[in-house]
Protein backbone atom coordinates (compact mmCIF):
# COMPACT_ATOMS: atom_id res chain seq x y z
CA UNK A 1 0.00 0.00 0.00
CA UNK A 2 1.06 3.56 -0.71
CA UNK A 3 -0.51 6.58 0.97
CA UNK A 4 -0.58 10.01 -0.67
CA UNK A 5 -2.24 13.00 0.91
CA UNK A 6 -3.32 16.25 -0.70
CA UNK A 7 -5.69 19.11 -0.15
CA UNK A 8 -8.57 20.12 -2.39
CA UNK A 9 -10.76 23.14 -1.54
CA UNK A 10 -10.12 22.65 2.18
CA UNK A 11 -10.84 18.94 1.93
CA UNK A 12 -8.14 16.50 3.01
CA UNK A 13 -7.77 13.79 0.36
CA UNK A 14 -6.02 10.52 1.22
CA UNK A 15 -5.15 8.51 -1.88
CA UNK A 16 -4.42 4.84 -1.32
CA UNK A 17 -2.84 2.51 -3.86
CA UNK A 18 -1.62 -1.06 -4.27
CA UNK A 19 -2.64 -3.97 -2.09
CA UNK A 20 -3.74 -3.37 1.50
CA UNK A 21 -3.03 -6.54 3.43
CA UNK A 22 -1.98 -5.55 6.94
CA UNK A 23 1.77 -5.25 6.53
CA UNK A 24 3.92 -2.73 8.41
CA UNK A 25 2.92 0.11 6.05
CA UNK A 26 -0.50 0.44 7.76
CA UNK A 27 1.29 2.94 10.03
CA UNK A 28 1.42 5.41 7.12
CA UNK A 29 -2.35 5.47 6.95
CA UNK A 30 -2.70 6.07 10.68
CA UNK A 31 -0.12 8.87 10.37
CA UNK A 32 -2.14 10.48 7.57
CA UNK A 33 -5.24 10.37 9.79
CA UNK A 34 -3.36 11.88 12.72
CA UNK A 35 -2.23 14.67 10.43
CA UNK A 36 -5.82 15.31 9.34
CA UNK A 37 -6.96 15.51 12.96
CA UNK A 38 -4.02 17.70 13.99
CA UNK A 39 -4.98 20.12 11.20
CA UNK A 40 -8.55 20.15 12.55
CA UNK A 41 -9.83 18.97 9.16
CA UNK A 42 -13.60 18.58 9.02
CA UNK A 43 -13.82 16.92 5.61
CA UNK A 44 -11.87 13.88 4.46
CA UNK A 45 -12.04 11.90 1.24
CA UNK A 46 -10.41 8.49 0.95
CA UNK A 47 -9.61 7.92 -2.73
CA UNK A 48 -9.61 4.14 -3.36
CA UNK A 49 -9.30 4.27 -7.16
CA UNK A 50 -5.75 2.91 -7.29
CA UNK A 51 -6.23 0.13 -4.75
CA UNK A 52 -5.68 -3.28 -6.35
CA UNK A 53 -7.36 -5.07 -3.44
CA UNK A 54 -7.65 -5.01 0.33
CA UNK A 55 -8.37 -7.64 2.97
CA UNK A 56 -10.01 -7.14 6.37
CA UNK A 57 -6.97 -5.11 7.49
CA UNK A 58 -7.86 -2.49 4.87
CA UNK A 59 -11.52 -2.55 5.81
CA UNK A 60 -10.44 -2.11 9.45
CA UNK A 61 -8.37 0.95 8.50
CA UNK A 62 -11.42 2.53 6.82
CA UNK A 63 -13.67 1.81 9.81
CA UNK A 64 -11.15 3.16 12.31
CA UNK A 65 -10.69 6.33 10.24
CA UNK A 66 -14.46 6.73 9.98
CA UNK A 67 -15.07 6.44 13.73
CA UNK A 68 -12.06 8.56 14.75
CA UNK A 69 -13.09 11.34 12.39
CA UNK A 70 -16.72 11.15 13.41
CA UNK A 71 -15.75 11.45 17.09
CA UNK A 72 -13.74 14.54 16.16
CA UNK A 73 -16.75 16.06 14.44
CA UNK A 74 -15.39 15.42 10.95
CA UNK A 75 -16.94 13.67 7.97
CA UNK A 76 -15.38 10.98 5.78
CA UNK A 77 -16.39 9.96 2.26
CA UNK A 78 -15.07 7.23 0.00
CA UNK A 79 -14.30 8.00 -3.63
CA UNK A 80 -13.61 5.75 -6.63
CA UNK A 81 -14.55 2.64 -4.70
CA UNK A 82 -13.59 -0.30 -6.93
CA UNK A 83 -15.94 -3.23 -7.61
CA UNK A 84 -13.75 -5.48 -5.45
CA UNK A 85 -13.91 -3.13 -2.47
CA UNK A 86 -17.63 -2.55 -2.99
CA UNK A 87 -18.24 -6.30 -2.82
CA UNK A 88 -16.26 -6.43 0.45
CA UNK A 89 -18.38 -3.59 1.83
CA UNK A 90 -21.51 -5.57 0.94
CA UNK A 91 -20.18 -8.77 2.56
CA UNK A 92 -19.35 -6.85 5.74
CA UNK A 93 -22.55 -4.73 5.58
CA UNK A 94 -20.49 -1.55 5.73
CA UNK A 95 -22.04 -0.34 2.48
CA UNK A 96 -24.80 1.06 4.69
CA UNK A 97 -22.26 2.96 6.83
CA UNK A 98 -19.93 4.55 4.26
CA UNK A 99 -20.90 7.20 1.76
CA UNK A 100 -19.23 6.07 -1.49
CA UNK A 101 -18.84 8.12 -4.68
CA UNK A 102 -17.75 7.17 -8.19
CA UNK A 103 -15.48 10.18 -8.55
CA UNK A 104 -13.52 12.47 -6.25
CA UNK A 105 -15.49 15.42 -7.69
CA UNK A 106 -18.83 13.95 -6.70
CA UNK A 107 -17.47 13.18 -3.22
CA UNK A 108 -16.35 16.83 -2.97
CA UNK A 109 -19.81 18.05 -4.01
CA UNK A 110 -21.55 15.74 -1.54
CA UNK A 111 -20.24 17.67 1.46
CA UNK A 112 -23.09 20.00 2.38
Amino acid at each position, binding site marked *: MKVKTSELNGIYVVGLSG*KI*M*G*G*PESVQFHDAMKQALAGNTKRVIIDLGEV*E*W*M*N*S*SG*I*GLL*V*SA*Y*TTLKNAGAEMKLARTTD*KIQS*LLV*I*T*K*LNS*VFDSHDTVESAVKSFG
Partner: protein
Amino acid sequence: MTKPLSTEQLVIPSSVDHIEKVDEFVERFATALGFDRDALADIGICVTELVMNAIVHAHKEKSDLPVQVDVEQHDSGLRVTVRDHGPGFDTETVPDPTSPENLLDDHGRGILIVRAMMDDVQCTRLDDGMQIAFFKRFVPK
Protein backbone atom coordinates in the same frame (compact mmCIF):
# COMPACT_ATOMS: atom_id res chain seq x y z
CA MET B 1 -10.01 -34.55 -2.30
CA THR B 2 -8.00 -36.40 -4.98
CA LYS B 3 -4.23 -36.25 -5.22
CA PRO B 4 -3.01 -32.83 -6.40
CA LEU B 5 -1.34 -32.44 -9.81
CA SER B 6 1.40 -30.29 -8.28
CA THR B 7 2.19 -28.73 -4.92
CA GLU B 8 4.45 -26.06 -3.45
CA GLN B 9 5.10 -24.90 0.09
CA LEU B 10 6.23 -21.69 1.75
CA VAL B 11 7.16 -21.37 5.42
CA ILE B 12 7.52 -17.92 6.98
CA PRO B 13 8.39 -16.63 10.46
CA SER B 14 5.52 -15.02 12.36
CA SER B 15 6.07 -11.40 11.46
CA VAL B 16 3.83 -9.12 9.41
CA ASP B 17 6.97 -8.11 7.52
CA HIS B 18 6.59 -11.39 5.61
CA ILE B 19 2.98 -11.01 4.52
CA GLU B 20 3.88 -9.65 1.07
CA LYS B 21 6.09 -12.65 0.44
CA VAL B 22 3.09 -14.92 1.01
CA ASP B 23 1.02 -12.96 -1.48
CA GLU B 24 3.78 -13.09 -4.10
CA PHE B 25 4.25 -16.85 -3.62
CA VAL B 26 0.55 -17.71 -3.99
CA GLU B 27 0.00 -15.20 -6.80
CA ARG B 28 2.83 -16.71 -8.84
CA PHE B 29 1.44 -20.23 -8.42
CA ALA B 30 -2.16 -19.19 -9.16
CA THR B 31 -1.16 -17.09 -12.17
CA ALA B 32 0.57 -20.12 -13.70
CA LEU B 33 -2.71 -22.03 -13.31
CA GLY B 34 -4.45 -19.40 -15.44
CA PHE B 35 -6.63 -17.56 -12.91
CA ASP B 36 -7.75 -14.13 -14.09
CA ARG B 37 -7.08 -10.82 -12.30
CA ASP B 38 -10.35 -10.91 -10.42
CA ALA B 39 -9.81 -14.43 -9.08
CA LEU B 40 -6.17 -13.61 -8.24
CA ALA B 41 -7.42 -10.73 -6.09
CA ASP B 42 -9.84 -13.02 -4.23
CA ILE B 43 -7.09 -15.57 -3.64
CA GLY B 44 -4.65 -12.88 -2.43
CA ILE B 45 -7.24 -11.41 -0.09
CA CYS B 46 -8.04 -14.78 1.47
CA VAL B 47 -4.56 -16.19 1.89
CA THR B 48 -3.26 -12.98 3.47
CA GLU B 49 -6.33 -13.00 5.72
CA LEU B 50 -5.51 -16.48 7.07
CA VAL B 51 -1.77 -15.88 7.34
CA MET B 52 -2.33 -12.60 9.22
CA ASN B 53 -4.53 -14.51 11.66
CA ALA B 54 -1.86 -17.17 12.13
CA ILE B 55 0.83 -14.53 12.76
CA VAL B 56 -1.22 -12.26 15.00
CA HIS B 57 -3.71 -14.49 16.83
CA ALA B 58 -2.15 -17.94 16.83
CA HIS B 59 1.50 -16.95 17.28
CA LYS B 60 1.19 -13.46 18.85
CA GLU B 61 3.93 -12.34 16.43
CA LYS B 62 6.55 -14.61 18.03
CA SER B 63 8.72 -14.75 14.96
CA ASP B 64 10.36 -18.12 15.73
CA LEU B 65 7.01 -19.86 15.24
CA PRO B 66 6.57 -20.90 11.58
CA VAL B 67 3.45 -20.37 9.47
CA GLN B 68 3.13 -22.92 6.69
CA VAL B 69 1.34 -22.22 3.41
CA ASP B 70 0.65 -25.08 0.99
CA VAL B 71 -0.71 -24.58 -2.51
CA GLU B 72 -2.07 -27.45 -4.61
CA GLN B 73 -3.04 -27.59 -8.25
CA HIS B 74 -6.12 -29.73 -8.86
CA ASP B 75 -8.10 -30.55 -12.02
CA SER B 76 -10.86 -28.23 -10.94
CA GLY B 77 -8.94 -25.45 -9.18
CA LEU B 78 -6.50 -24.32 -6.52
CA ARG B 79 -6.40 -25.38 -2.91
CA VAL B 80 -4.55 -23.28 -0.33
CA THR B 81 -3.86 -24.46 3.22
CA VAL B 82 -2.56 -22.31 6.08
CA ARG B 83 -1.21 -24.09 9.14
CA ASP B 84 -0.25 -22.55 12.47
CA HIS B 85 0.95 -23.83 15.85
CA GLY B 86 -1.23 -21.75 18.12
CA PRO B 87 -4.00 -22.69 20.57
CA GLY B 88 -6.59 -23.04 17.81
CA PHE B 89 -10.11 -21.63 17.95
CA ASP B 90 -13.70 -22.55 17.27
CA THR B 91 -14.53 -21.11 13.87
CA GLU B 92 -18.26 -21.64 14.42
CA THR B 93 -18.48 -19.29 17.39
CA VAL B 94 -16.57 -16.22 16.18
CA PRO B 95 -18.78 -13.14 16.74
CA ASP B 96 -20.80 -11.93 13.74
CA PRO B 97 -19.03 -8.75 12.54
CA THR B 98 -22.17 -7.61 10.70
CA SER B 99 -24.37 -7.44 13.79
CA PRO B 100 -25.16 -3.85 14.89
CA GLU B 101 -23.03 -4.00 18.05
CA ASN B 102 -19.96 -5.17 16.09
CA LEU B 103 -20.45 -3.31 12.81
CA LEU B 104 -18.04 -0.47 13.66
CA ASP B 105 -15.34 -2.61 15.30
CA ASP B 106 -11.89 -2.24 13.74
CA HIS B 107 -11.51 -6.02 13.54
CA GLY B 108 -13.38 -9.31 13.24
CA ARG B 109 -14.12 -9.59 9.50
CA GLY B 110 -11.41 -11.93 8.16
CA ILE B 111 -13.13 -15.28 8.54
CA LEU B 112 -16.40 -13.88 7.18
CA ILE B 113 -14.61 -12.57 4.08
CA VAL B 114 -12.84 -15.89 3.41
CA ARG B 115 -16.11 -17.81 3.76
CA ALA B 116 -17.90 -15.41 1.42
CA MET B 117 -15.23 -15.39 -1.29
CA MET B 118 -14.07 -19.00 -1.49
CA ASP B 119 -15.86 -22.06 -2.82
CA ASP B 120 -15.09 -24.35 0.07
CA VAL B 121 -13.50 -23.53 3.42
CA GLN B 122 -12.35 -26.27 5.76
CA CYS B 123 -11.29 -25.48 9.30
CA THR B 124 -9.54 -28.21 11.26
CA ARG B 125 -8.46 -27.90 14.86
CA LEU B 126 -5.34 -30.04 15.38
CA ASP B 127 -3.57 -31.08 18.59
CA ASP B 128 -0.98 -28.38 18.08
CA GLY B 129 -2.65 -25.67 16.06
CA MET B 130 -5.10 -24.76 13.37
CA GLN B 131 -5.32 -25.71 9.74
CA ILE B 132 -7.59 -23.73 7.45
CA ALA B 133 -7.94 -24.58 3.78
CA PHE B 134 -9.90 -23.01 0.95
CA PHE B 135 -10.60 -23.98 -2.63
CA LYS B 136 -10.91 -21.66 -5.63
CA ARG B 137 -12.55 -23.31 -8.63
CA PHE B 138 -11.54 -22.58 -12.21
CA VAL B 139 -14.27 -20.70 -14.00
CA PRO B 140 -14.81 -22.24 -17.47
CA LYS B 141 -14.07 -19.67 -20.20
